[in-house]
């Protein structure tokens, strides 16, 4: 019902233009009546403005030597790309990114699955488990980092104090090159495992009970039911979780930026951090763009590989 005064509700089944509009608008209205274009327009506008256009102009930038302060801007061909491929820091930070992705993806899938299965098997107080496993994911990254920073402090942090109770020597959680990446991984897993947990829990709840019933009738124990019913039923979800997780881990930036700033040394500097440093504090927009597009190619490659694998499996 229209609430506008003076405009009686009229049936719109014919989709005709309201009377009183100029002729040209009426004609346009009629012509578009069967087309989805007007509905798509707002989206397309935003999409073009904020995704397509930056994507294209970024690509152009990567072939120039433009700087943040507006200097440069001359076309330099593939020079930036050549430099990027020969830049040891690109490779080092790419290596860190891949390492981080490996170290986080495995636990973030396995732990999420384990937690979901445990909760689903009927621990008492389900809501409490669900809440506490998911809650960290709701925290903003700044809060998470603040908390973990305190835990990681070397001489009076909780973790080293706890190690001290067992007579073990404290670790340089964020200050030792060999442990810093692990600390970042630990924080990330704690923070984001809840999301995958939720996906798994939803999938578990949608497995029909009759499957378990039938399996139980056939004499399958709890373990066999898990192996032969639950896990196969979760395969689709696992593929989704895996893809989302790999993509999320590859674009790691905020927790590293806040926890270690990429240090000590280059131990935790991810590729995105490097791109940021080069482009925004180093002013080299063109070069930063080139490295970004190389990274984009890599991410697209991962996504394509994933699609190919899942298509093959289905086929």
């Amino acid at each position: 019902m229209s609430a506008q005064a003076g405009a009686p509700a009229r049936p719109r089944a014919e989709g005709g233009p309201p009377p009183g509009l100029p002729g040209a608008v009426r004609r346009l209205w009629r012509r578009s009546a069967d087309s989805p274009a007007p509905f798509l327009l707002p989206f397309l506008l935003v999409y073009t403005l904020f995704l397509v256009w930056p994507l294209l102009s970024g690509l152009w930038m990567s072939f120039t030597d433009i700087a943040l302060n507006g200097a440069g801007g001359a076309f330099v061909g593939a020079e930036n790309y050549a430099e990027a491929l020969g830049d040891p820091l690109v490779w080092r930070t790419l290596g860190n990114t891949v390492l981080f992705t490996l170290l986080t993806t495995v636990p973030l899938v396995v732990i999420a699955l384990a937690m979901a299965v445990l909760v689903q098997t009927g621990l008492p107080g389900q809501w409490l488990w669900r809440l506490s496993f998911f809650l960290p994911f709701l925290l903003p990254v700044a809060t998470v980092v603040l908390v973990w920073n305190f835990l990681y402090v070397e001489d009076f942090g909780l973790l080293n104090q706890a190690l001290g109770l067992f007579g073990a020597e404290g670790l340089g959680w964020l200050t030792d090159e060999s442990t810093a990446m692990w600390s970042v991984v630990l924080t990330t897993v704690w923070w984001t495992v809840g999301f995958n947990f939720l996906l798994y829990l939803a999938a578990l709840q949608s497995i029909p009970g009759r499957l378990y019933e039938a399996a139980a009738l056939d004499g399958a124990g709890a373990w066999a039911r898990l192996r032969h019913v639950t896990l196969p039923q979760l395969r689709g979800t696992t593929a989704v979780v895996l893809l989302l997780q790999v993509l999320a881990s590859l674009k790691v930036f905020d927790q590293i930026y806040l926890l270690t700033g990429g240090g000590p040394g280059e131990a935790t500097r991810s590729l995105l951090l490097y791109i940021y440093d080069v482009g925004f504090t180093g002013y080299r927009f063109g070069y930063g763009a080139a490295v970004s597009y190389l990274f984009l190619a890599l991410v697209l490659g991962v996504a394509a590989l994933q699609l190919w694998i899942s298509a093959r499996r289905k086929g």
Partner: protein
Amino acid sequence: MPHPPHRADPQTGSPPLLSRRRLLLGTGALALGSALGASGCAPGPGPGSTTEVRFWSLFQGGDGARVETMLDAVHAQAPHLRVTPSTLAWGPPYYTKLAVASVGGRAPETAVLHLSRLPGYAPGGLLEPFDPDLLAEFGVTAEDFVPGLWERGVHDGDVYAVPLDTHPVIVFYDTGAADRAGLLDGDGRLTGMDSPEGFLQASRALAEAGGGSGVSFGHVNDDSQGWRLFWMLYNQTGASLDLPEGGPAGLDRDAALRVYAFLADLFDGRTSEPDLTYPTALAAFASGRSAMLICGEWELPYLLEHVEDLGAAPFPTVFDRPGGYADSHAFVLPRQGDPGPERTRAAHEFVALMVRNSLTWGEAGHIPAYSPVARSSEYLALKPQADYAAAGETPVLDPEAWFAGAGSQFHSDVSEALRTALSGDGPEAAVEHLERTLDSWAARTNPGGAR
């Protein structure tokens, strides 16, 4: 609040600089913002005959509160200035924001810049020079500053920066522990640390007399600390560093090795920790677990609150000549899209007034750059500020290069060499590390150079 309320949109609707377009090619969001902005109306001078001076600073916390006090004083002395302060978070992105604002032609009338960043700013056309006559009219001339400092604000004969302070790296110490360690002379001044051996001995004595740790210094995962300490001591050896365009860098390897070897001896993990982060070092000293802290004087307000018997002194002359790593907060005039003589004049007056009111700034620990304040009896009565005020006479500023300076990528790169010396492959490797990094920087061309 005595300042007039913040104006929501100080947008001037100015014609953009040509180069702004090129920058915005890449940033869709910004492009939209400026398109919207360009349709805004020009505000003109406000009601009454006040002139707005927008002022960007990077001062937070205690410093920020001091700035407020100074702004109050300025307001009382010049009610016709309508000052709109904006505090931006300190860190490398500060200079990104300032550069972008200048490029966009929508910069504030005045902003704070580390003097060490000037070589990367003035040549790129991001700043306007000051008018010395106008400054003199408001009571500020070159003769009022330490010459080395004022000179660093001059580029191609034009004055681009008016220094507010010097903020050197100094030593803070617990006077009780220092006394027990036998490091204080009859006047209660630090003594016996003016040689590498003396410094090392003092560190051991302090560890015994204090809470178990001698000298604290935080540098791990920090963007500048490793460089500050090295560059200060390197200068103390009297060595120079050439950074010719195109490279290679002219580093005095022997001097660099002397410095790193000394620091490796000092932070040997027995009496002084080699791998502290900045906050950990600060906390270790504030809580009494170490008796001395090497740090910038800017931690003074915090330490005054937490350390009962706080002493402070210029960094000892460990090598051949005195020198404390320092930078200087300076006022600059970012390039605007439509500068007007009235606003330029107001900005000059504002800067002059801030500098002349910098006694408040001295209370925060910084050494006023304006000599009439630094030599005033009020300032010299401040304790422990007066004890390290001498450090303002021999500041060791960053090398003059477009890539150097506070919050630069160069700083974080060269800082890493200290970690190589202390917890990596040792002093020789650190010299290699440093030289490699310096060469690589010297070889680069300034991306923001020619506009």
